[in-house]
């Protein structure tokens, strides 16, 4: 009896984990699609942003906001550990995103000056000046 109960519990946890993973992947692909179609993009401040003029659905807006909230949590935690400001930690991540880059060809990104550009095959990415390279 108790054993059955435990087994059922384990099964439930397994199911919940699978569901969570599936949800995370779904969110990932929706954002990836929006990036690829130029609706949203990486910004020099370390967050995702909406490209002006793009038709953003309520669903997409929610996903982007959620993503940025999670990013902010990461930045805040690490900033506290390193005794720097959240903005500085976010800027450091932005440098990695722009320099590696984590911006695919065809995707749009927002420069330090606030302008939206598109990464094309031949062009170099406009890396923020504070990245120190």
């Amino acid at each position, binding site marked *: 009896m108790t054993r059955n109960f435990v087994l059922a519990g384990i099964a439930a946890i397994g199911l919940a984990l699978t569901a969570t993973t599936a949800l*995370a992947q779904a*969110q*990932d692909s929706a954002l*990836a699609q929006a*990036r690829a179609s130029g609706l949203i993009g*990486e910004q020099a401040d370390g967050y995702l942003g909406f490209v002006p003029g793009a038709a953003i659905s309520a669903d997409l807006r929610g996903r982007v906001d959620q*993503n940025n909230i*999670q*990013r902010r949590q*990461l*930045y805040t935690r*690490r900033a506290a550990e*390193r005794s*720097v400001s959240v903005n*500085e*930690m976010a*800027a*450091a*991540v932005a*440098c*990695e*995103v722009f320099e*590696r*880059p*984590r*911006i*695919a*060809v065809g*995707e749009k990104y927002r420069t330090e000056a606030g302008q939206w550009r598109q990464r094309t095959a031949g062009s170099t990415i406009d890396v923020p*000046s*504070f*990245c*120190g390279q």
Partner: protein
Amino acid sequence: MRAHLLTSLGAAIFAAGCIPVQIQAPDEPIEINLNVNIRQEVIVRLERDAAELLDQNSDLFGGTTP
């Protein structure tokens, strides 16, 4: 002759003194540069942390792209 030289020298100095020299107070460029340097230094110091955050949270950021 020597007095003449001295006079012209004096005139030259006097004239130079009369040239209006405009001195404008700098618009805090020194302070701005200092801030940029400090910021850059902090960002460079955080490079490893930033890379780690990216690697550990690839679901939040775009995939690695060549």
